[in-house]
């Protein structure tokens, strides 16, 4: 064997050994450069090929080429191995560690309850309506069949406002904060010919000292339906539908005769469910309702012989408190993030 050929095998073996010994991509690159780089040992052998005789050259070329292919293949294998090793995590992931959380905010619990109520009413064809929170005596009381000296006004202690305007307090048209969403009944009926089918969520105000069940600001929902031949049976049917939607299908509803100046006959609504039983009560009062008083219809210019209707209203806080077991109304207005996160 010519002397040149004998030089190939040891360099190749040395290169293969170093390639397989290279522990990382840097070491591998060094090895590559030291053998296959322009000044590398194997490259030096290649460079010698030109110095060989014509006879020696084919054989040597063949041998060198085979060795080169082998080395490059070994290099590629090693590279691939080391590359994939480099991609491996430095330490394994602890899948029980908490991740980087993105925060999704939440609707206020009162908004959630309001939306649930609105959703149930909309299912049965109600439109949402709205009206001002600053009202006049007429829309809040007089038009609702509650004249100024009416004893029913005692139960609704009212906040009055100092305000400028062409109708001052002097002529009995003082401004006030609405004590109920029922004022919107009048606002809507004044503008809209019957039939009317609306639901009115909103803030209302009563001059009660704040305690566990009272806040001067709270929310109500009013429902009003005026059409031809609307009956007490219709009222019952809708109320039952809505409360079953809200409080669960096993909810039972009871109507009791009561008194509101703007409905006649009037009823209070009690409900009974697992929630009330948990509170140790067979029935829990939840809402007031009744057939729209003909005087109210007449006050907005409707013909009370042709049109009849029902209205009902309830407190959203009360529903939320019962539903979620919240025992203090003030929690709703403190906006403690621990509470907001819970619902």
């Amino acid at each position: 064997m010519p002397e040149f050929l004998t030089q190939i095998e040891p360099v190749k073996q040395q290169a293969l050994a170093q390639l397989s010994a290279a522990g990382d991509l840097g070491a591998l690159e060094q090895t590559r450069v030291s053998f296959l780089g322009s000044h590398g040992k194997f490259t030096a052998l290649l460079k010698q090929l030109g110095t060989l005789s014509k006879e020696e050259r084919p054989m040597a070329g063949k041998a060198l080429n085979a060795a080169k292919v082998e080395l490059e293949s070994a290099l590629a294998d090693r590279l691939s191995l080391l590359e994939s090793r480099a991609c491996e995590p430095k330490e394994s992931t602890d899948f029980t560690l908490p991740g980087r959380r993105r925060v999704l905010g939440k609707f206020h619990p009162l908004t959630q309850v309001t939306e649930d109520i609105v959703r149930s009413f909309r299912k049965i064809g109600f439109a949402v309506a709205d009206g001002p929170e600053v009202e006049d005596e007429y829309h809040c009381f007089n038009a609702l069949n509650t004249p100024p000296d009416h004893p029913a006004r005692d139960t609704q202690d009212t906040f009055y406002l100092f305000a400028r305007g062409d109708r001052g307090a002097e002529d009995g048209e003082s401004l006030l904060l609405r004590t109920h969403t029922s004022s919107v009944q009048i606002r809507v009926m004044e503008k809209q010919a019957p039939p009317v089918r609306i639901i009115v969520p909103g803030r209302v105000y009563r001059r009660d000292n704040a305690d566990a069940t009272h806040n001067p600001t709270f929310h109500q929902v009013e429902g009003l339906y005026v059409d031809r031949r609307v009956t007490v049976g219709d009222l019952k049917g809708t109320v039952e539908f809505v409360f079953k939607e809200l409080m669960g299908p096993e909810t039972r509803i009871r109507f009791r005769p009561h008194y509101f100046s703007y409905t006649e006959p009037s009823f209070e609504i009690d409900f009974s469910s697992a929630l009330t039983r948990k509170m140790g009560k067979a029935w829990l009062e939840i809402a007031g309702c009744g057939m729209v008083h003909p005087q109210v219809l007449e006050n907005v210019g409707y013909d009370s012989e042709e049109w009849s209707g029902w209205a009902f209203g309830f407190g959203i806080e009360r529903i939320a408190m019962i539903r979620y077991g919240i025992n203090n109304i003030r929690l709703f207005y403190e906006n403690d993030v621990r509470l907001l996160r819970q619902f």
Partner: protein
Amino acid sequence: MKVTFNWLKQYVDFSWAPEELAERLTMLGIEVEGMEKLGGQFEGIVVAQVMTCDRHPNADKLSVCRVNDGTTERQIVCGAHNFKVGDKVPLILPGRTLPTKPGEAPLTIKVGRIRGIESQGMMCSPQELGLPGEVEGLLILREDAKVGQRFAEYLGQKEADVLYDLEITPNRPDLNSIIGIAREIGALTGNPLKLPEIKLPEAGQAIQGRVAVEIADRELCPRYTARLIRGIKIAPSPDWLKTALEKIGIRSISNVVDVTNYVMMEVGQPLHAFDFNLLEKAPGDAHPAIVVRRAAEGEKFMTLDGQERTLTDPMLLIADKTKPIALAGVMGGHNSEINLETTDVLIESAYFKPQSIRATSKKLELRTESSYRFERGCDVGICDWASRRAAQLILQTAGGELARGLVDAYPQPVERKQITLRHHKVNELLGIELAPEQIENYLSQLGLKAASRKPRPVGAEAAAPAPVSFVIPTFRVDLKREVDLIEEVVRLHGVEKIPSTPPRGAVGFNPYDSVHDQLAEARRMLTGLGLFEAQGQTLVSDAAAKLAGAEPLVPLTNPLSSDMNVLRPSLLPGLLDALRHNLSRKNGDVALFELGRVFAASATSTKGSGVGQETPGVGETRRVAIALTGNRQPLFWSGADREAKFDLYDLKGLIEEFFEQFGIRGVTYSRRADSTPLFIESATIQLGKFYLGQFGQLLPALRKEYDLADAALLAELDLDVLLARRNTTKSFKPLGSFPPIRRDVAMVLPEATTHEAILQVVKQSKLAHLESVELFDVFRGKNVPAGQKSMAYAFTYRSPERTLTDAEVNAAHQDLVAHFKQRLGAAIRE
């Protein structure tokens, strides 16, 4: 209104147990708010005598006794040994329950076999009865105890009764009396009302010639009656009277006063008793006179509670010719009240105009059982009956001699109202079919008499019953029109018997409907951005309100406190309160928004898609506000910026993303030159000529005042303007499919050069294929001279039609860079 079971039973028969009565009253519209058993814990326990006592055949420690319970002899197995034959002991009969101690389950005694021998009841120890006593074994009763006597009676306890606390609605003043409630029970059961029979002696001297009554204001006092009893003796009331009043929570005072209270509770008519001898007559008059007149402005009067009160016209007074003696319908006078020396009594039974009593009572802040009844409306027809009833009971309890007859000043007796009922209206409103007879029957059970049948309206179906006119008793002040009669029908028929009809009818419409959805959409976006929704108080303090701006505030005339004396002009004071609350609870990281109304005193309010309605004098607008404080990210356990706090750019980013999602484009932000009462640094937000709102960083002084640990960032936007200006049109823009080419530029600029100024230059350069400009670095410090900053932008070029060449992009980009140098004095960093 408090009533007791036994008292009701005096006026009407019913067979309901106490619980059922409560249920029936509630379903009739008289809500039972409370129910309390009085006495009665020894129900079913009687005095019994041991007749024989033998050893139990199967148990050494037990005996088998024969015991007489007054009606029969029973066999009782007993374990006690402290008694002998002939002893009297308490015996509980089978089916009865031992007095229950708090927290224990009730124990009901049954007939049972004890070791093979039947035992028909149980002889009781003091412990078993809940009575004190150290006795080992049975309670041995006194020898004189009557066999068969109720054990409660043996103990001298009152009969068992049940106290009901009833909620009486303001429309039904007639129910503020025992008889009123009994009447309702009668209507429900069909049983007649049993009114006490009143027979008064006719022998005495006539009242005429002893006292006169002059009504000066007939409108405020339509009727005034007086009766006179002489020679009575004031003394404590007899037991029955004391007990009756005490059960319903009225303190017993003396026989005469108690009788007036008793009759008021019985029939609902407030009465007043004057010491007749304290009435003075005018000089020259033969006898004293009662004058019903309006108070003079500023007139002073001492009511019997010892308070001197300053009266105003038209408060109504009862007076004699020289002085006022009672505040009509509200409270008697100190100068004429019944006292221990009283011998002659004048009984007032009158009717006063409800509005007058209500106004007086409200103005003087003096509420009494009497004013409560008068202001709701008493029965003008009952004055005489009530007066006779009081006379009867005074004679019975205090003796004396009744002057014959009464003075009844009743210048214009009221006519009884009549209300016409059309039967079909009942059924139309209730949604059921009631027979005409049934409807009329319900009403007649309530004491409404059918007066006349109206002729059938022309064209009405022949079968339709003719409308009926009902005469309304004077005590039913609430019945005013047809629908009120319909309510009576449904009360007696029972609303539970009306079948529910499934929702049906018109589909609703209201312009607000879509606004509601848009508000919900805004809420959803804001929660999606990591904010929690808050709900603040509408009522805030004027001090806090003033922080938010200079708009004229809307103050309350009757605030509850100075903390809540104006309507919020902004949502920010409320959010600051929420931050403070959270920090006080150690919730350091808070990101909230609120969507709500604010109020400003003005003659106009924002219209458009906004609140849409306004009350003159106060403008209502919707706003959305955001508040941030504390850590930007939820706690994480790694990373250099994990402790980073919220800053103004977090807030601005939220606002920008919200605007984009909500469809608000072309917004400009202008830095305010100075701090405001709220912000140390802030900007206003405009959309063209429309003011959208402001945002900024809270003043350090306020941050301290609100006890906040970190910087607080606040924003408030006018939601009504956003609703009106949002553009929600959506249309497809083709997605560029040719490759983009990016060129980065970093340049050193004077500190005062704004991002906005750079964008202006870019805009004015009108580069054909520029797709986007993004700022990716702002740097100050090493290699950047003081007073300057380095800003790095990425420019992306792309054509929708072809692949751009490097050359054309380079050319365009060179132009742009030249503009930066020229216009902004930028030094390009290579």
